[in-house]
């Protein structure tokens, strides 16, 4: 071979071999030395964790299956500006559907980030109605995405709002929503795998067949009809008696299931955002979260303790002189009168403070307070609602707060604070032959797989004997029959007790305004309903016997009819008929 071509060939071979060596070195560097770095870099670009469509939060129904809290459909409207060429045209199209100024949309579509690049993603409307969302979808504009969202919906409006609480898109607050939040929440599932340039999954390997699970559904013991009637009665009572606020609780004494729990002021759970901005949002449930001095309804507990401890019988007498001294404090009857020789039955029926103080004084603090604790005072009832408070009961061992005079004042409901629910539970215990159960609002839980868990009543304690409960019930019947006649129900025997409490203020009690409570149950002898009515600062009369007792009578009469509970005479006929 000539010298020239040989040299050129040598040069070519040298270059080629050199290039191959460079490539091999680079390959070794990429494949071996920097292997982990490039592997991770590739994975970062290819693999994404994508949250699958979130299933709905568990729904809440009443005991009849009526939906109280469900999930409505809304849409978020989003844009990827890089895919939109005619921004002004798209803005015009969207403006008419979204009811937003076109200029506003165009500005959003043209907005740039810190790096002066067009934003990759813009949220045009965070939550629009179904109609608007579907209208945008129908436009079929490239670069505009309509993403479905869940929105908690309360189709019954303000009905049972305090009991239900409310929920944002993620978290539940107050009431059932707050208490059962973890259970109601849906499962959030992330899909991890390779995606394409539009971040959509590439299904190159089999995808999971199961959908994420929705939240657990709850069926309450609440009855929509009973709740409606209770709320209507509460509104009527507030108007008729000029009260500022109030609470009504309806319970089943056999199970301590709550049939209705109504409080005013109320609110619409869907408006929680606006309401949260108020100085004092109305979210707390006054039935379980607010405590008050109960007044004379508390004498039910005092008499129960005295009867059950064997200290007295309903016929035991004492001489009511119109005053009594306990722990250095003189206690008088509310009427300032002396009633002379009176029985324990008359003590409760006429609501005599002196008699109640006599009972607690002679029982002594150990016996008296052990019964109050037995009825669950000073501790939460354990109801499945968020935000329950324990009330306030000072015991002799609380040396800083308790004074011997408390023994007298506590006997007729002063110096002690309870929630309306605690008071209702106390009376339900009497109606349930002396056995205290744990009150509850959820009757059944239904898992996404269809498994049903039924709530079984939980016995907390036998507080008084069945005999004491029956004696006390008869005394409470006398209260209604002889004294608080406004609470009488034609054709039915009902037991009850009214209580008019002064409102404590720093240094004593307010001169004006009372809290009127009536709590009772019926029909006897097998009570099916316990009802507590509490009215704050009624104007037409300060006395519960003239206000709350009337509300009780109207509501229980209506509920007997609606729930198909026949009058005493009717029940006798049914019982006697077939024999």
């Amino acid at each position: 071979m000539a010298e020239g071509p040989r040299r050129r060939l040598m040069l070519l071979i040298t270059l080629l071999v050199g290039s191959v060596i460079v490539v091999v070195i680079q390959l070794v560097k990429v494949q071996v030395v920097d292997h982990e770095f490039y592997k991770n870099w590739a994975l970062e670009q290819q693999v994404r964790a994508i949250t699958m469509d979130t299933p709905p939060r568990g729904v809440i129904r009443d005991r009849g299956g009526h939906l109280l809290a469900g999930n409505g459909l809304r849409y978020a409207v989003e844009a990827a500006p890089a895919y939109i060429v005619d921004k002004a045209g798209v803005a015009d199209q969207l403006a008419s559907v979204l009811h937003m100024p076109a200029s506003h949309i165009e500005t959003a579509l043209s907005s740039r980030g810190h790096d002066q690049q067009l934003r990759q993603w813009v949220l045009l409307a965070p939550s629009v109605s179904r109609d608007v969302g579907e209208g945008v979808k129908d436009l079929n504009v490239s670069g505009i995405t309509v993403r479905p969202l869940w929105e908690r919906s309360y189709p019954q409006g303000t009905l049972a709002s305090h009991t239900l609480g409310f929920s944002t898109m993620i978290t539940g607050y107050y009431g059932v929503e707050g208490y059962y939040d973890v259970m109601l929440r849906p499962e959030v599932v992330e899909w991890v795998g390779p995606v394409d340039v539009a971040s959509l999954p590439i299904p190159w390997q089999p995808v999971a067949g199961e959908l994420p699970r929705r939240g657990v559904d709850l069926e309450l013991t609440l009855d929509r009809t009973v709740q409606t009637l209770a709320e209507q009665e509460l509104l009527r009572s507030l108007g008729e008696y000029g009260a500022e606020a109030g609470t009504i609780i309806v319970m089943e004494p056999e199970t301590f299931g709550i049939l209705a729990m109504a409080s005013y002021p109320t609110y619409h759970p869907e408006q929680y955002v606006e309401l949260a901005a108020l100085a004092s949002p109305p979210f707390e449930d006054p039935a379980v979260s607010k405590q008050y001095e109960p007044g004379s309804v508390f004498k039910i507990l005092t008499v129960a303790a005295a009867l059950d401890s064997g200290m007295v019988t309903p016929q035991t007498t004492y001489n009511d002189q119109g005053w009594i001294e306990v722990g250095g404090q003189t206690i008088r009857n509310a009427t300032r009168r002396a009633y002379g020789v009176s029985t324990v039955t008359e003590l409760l029926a006429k609501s005599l403070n002196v008699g109640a103080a006599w009972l607690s004084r002679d029982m002594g603090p150990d016996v008296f307070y052990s019964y109050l604790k037995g009825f669950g005072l000073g501790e939460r009832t354990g109801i499945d609602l968020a935000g329950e408070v324990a009330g306030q009961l000072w015991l002799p061992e609380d040396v800083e707060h308790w004074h011997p005079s408390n023994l007298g004042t506590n006997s007729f409901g002063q110096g002690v604070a309870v929630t309306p629910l605690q008071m209702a539970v106390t009376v339900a215990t009497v109606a349930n032959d002396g056995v205290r159960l744990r009150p509850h609002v959820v009757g059944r839980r239904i898992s996404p797989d269809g498994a049903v868990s039924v709530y079984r009543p939980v016995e907390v304690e036998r507080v008084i004997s069945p005999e004491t409960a029956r004696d006390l019930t008869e005394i409470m019947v006398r209260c209604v029959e002889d004294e608080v006649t406004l609470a009488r129900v034609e054709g039915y025997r009902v037991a009850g007790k009214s209580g008019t409490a002064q409102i404590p203020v720093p240094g004593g009690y307010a001169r004006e305004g009372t809290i009127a409570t009536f709590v009772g149950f019926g029909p006897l002898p097998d009570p099916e309903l316990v009802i507590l009515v509490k009215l704050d600062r009624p104007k037409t009369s300060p006395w519960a016997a003239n206000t709350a007792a009337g509300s009780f009578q109207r509501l229980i009469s209506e509920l007997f009819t609606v729930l198909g509970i026949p009058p005493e005479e009717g029940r006798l006929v049914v019982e006697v008929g077939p024999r």
Partner: protein
Amino acid sequence: MPDFLEWVTHGVKQGRFEMNAAATVGVSLVVVVLTLVTALYLMLISRTAARGRYIEGLQAQAFGLQRENQQLMVDIAEQSTVSGLRERAEALGLVAAETIEFVADLEQ
């Protein structure tokens, strides 16, 4: 080195390669097997992807139906509130009963 250069220049000069029959069969076999494996792999990947897309579609459909179902539940509940039912009853001319009389069922 001269032998290597001779080998290279020879190849360049000759411009053709000769192969015996056995080698030809062997190479052909390898090519066929590789083609088959590649085709089968592509088929498998394609089927998996198609099934994945199908499942994705079903999931999307299931989510869509779930959304529809939940919204319908809310719509039905809104249409059948107690106040709504009462208004409807009143519009139909129905009135609440003043008194209820319970009649004993003597055959029970």
